[in-house]
């Protein structure tokens, strides 16, 4: 799987300017019953970047993400991942769910190792991998806890560790912080920046929070209201090397937030 992706992106070092690892070609989605969610979306997601889909609620962001994940069929159009057409979920993509989707009967360790378990990786091997990722998301010592013993923020860290554990090139996150309280969400966003910088993976992120989008993204795709199209693409050029709190005071950050708000405003009645 890694070999096949290497053909597409021979220079991961230049990922910032990288070629598209995920391409969406003229995707349309009409739900049974006639609701048109997406009307012809064409988009590229550059390798090694975090691209956010942002738009008013109900605009089809999650629908688009699930089509890319192969969890929902598109009505027409195609999705290419690493140059191949998507027909269903694949090993090069993993998913972080809005409602965490953790198995309540399984420990943190088993939940994180579950993707590997389904792939038939030996128990000792997959648990060793999972332990590493649990530590990486800051949950060391919670391996044998159960989801109901964790806070919402910690549960989503488990969801993120599970997505990291399968070592996919693309990680999709569907409003991962929407069920998490504000303080936890800020801390999590800061930690996420660190993880992204270390992981060198492509992230596809869906959110309805403008601040969150600007804070974490290399690229922001604004979607219009349903039936949605790509409205604008914004690349906030923020310096993320310094203090993560400093970003929120950076004039570039504030300008980007304001700019997006101005362009989204017209979709609200």
């Amino acid at each position, binding site marked *: 799987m890694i070999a096949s992706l290497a053909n597409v992106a021979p220079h991961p070092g230049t990922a910032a300017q990288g070629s598209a690892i995920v391409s969406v070609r003229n995707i349309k989605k009409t739900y049974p019953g006639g609701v048109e969610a997406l009307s012809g979306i064409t988009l590229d997601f550059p390798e090694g970047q975090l691209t956010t889909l942002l738009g008013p609620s109900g605009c089809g962001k999650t629908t688009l993400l699930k089509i890319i994940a192969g969890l929902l069929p598109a009505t027409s159009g195609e999705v290419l991942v690493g140059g191949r057409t998507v027909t*269903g*979920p694949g090993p090069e993509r993993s998913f972080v769910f809005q*409602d965490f*989707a953790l*198995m*309540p009967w399984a420990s943190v360790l088993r939940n994180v190792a579950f993707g590997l378990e*389904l792939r038939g990786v030996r128990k000792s091997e997959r648990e060793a991998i999972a332990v590493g990722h649990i530590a990486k998301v800051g949950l060391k010592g919670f391996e044998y806890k159960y989801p109901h013993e964790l806070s919402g923020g910690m549960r989503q860290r488990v969801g993120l560790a*599970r997505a990291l554990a399968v070592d996919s090139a693309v990680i999709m996150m569907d409003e991962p912080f929407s069920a998490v309280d504000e303080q936890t969400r800020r801390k999590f966003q800061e930690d996420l920046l660190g993880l992204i910088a270390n992981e060198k993976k492509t992230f596809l992120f869906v959110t309805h929070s403008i601040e969150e989008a600007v804070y974490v993204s290399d690229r922001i795709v604004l979607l219009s209201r349903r039936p949605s199209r790509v409205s604008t693409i914004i690349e906030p050029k923020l310096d993320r090397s310094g203090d993560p709190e400093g970003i929120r005071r950076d004039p570039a950050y504030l300008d980007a937030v304001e700019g997006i708000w101005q362009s989204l405003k017209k979709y609200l009645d």
Partner: protein
Amino acid sequence: MPVAATNDFTEPAVAPVASSTSLRQIASHPLTLRFVSFGLLLVAWEYAGRIPISVAFPTFLETMRGLLDMAGDGSLLKAFLITLKPLIAGLMISIALGVGLGLLMGLSRFSEWLLGPIFIIAQAAPLAALIPVLTFAYGIGLTAKIMTVCIMAMPVIVMNTLSAVRNTPVSLVEMGRAFLGTRSQIITRIILPAASPMIFAGLRLGAAAAFIGIVLAELLITPTGIGDLISYHQSVADYPKMYASIFSIIVFSVLFIECLERVETVLFRPEKHAS
């Protein structure tokens, strides 16, 4: 610092507070309430038997003496062994077939369309009315009794399993697909564990219905086992022993269902007994 200050402040009151809280702890323990409620019922029973409200109504203590007598001469054990045979056989068949059919219906719309209506009717209908028909068809032997247990226990097991499977969180199944689970992996590792609490709730209801079924069968088809003890002691007017037989099957059924709950927690819900 604030902790120490609080301690100093409450120091003189520690002893009385401790004794009253331990009393309150006992009083608020869920078991206490159960024992008190049972105790009141037994006292009322004893009192009603002493009035007496009827010559055919023994006191609680007489009933217990009858129970000890029957336990002592081995007739109780013998009766239970006879009753248990069709009960366990019928319950096993109901569980295997019921959970199997429920799963099938939960996983495939076609089989639900095909089989669903039968079980919806069976669950609502007074199926005990079928006992004479079963006797007619299968005679008065073991088969008719096992069938009685099955028709009583199976519908609720099937319907609970069906809705348990249907109630699996959509996002968990989606998660299984996103992480490349095969259909059978998703069924065995996600849908079944997610459905197990509700399936077990169905099994407990099914077991309770199975007890109703076996007692009905033993009273209506031919008196055997516990049904024989009840009707024999009624016919010779040995009311303490008749009540003792009824009492013993009720206690046994409650304990049996309680055990089923323990089995579920130990086998399927590790998070419930985690530290």
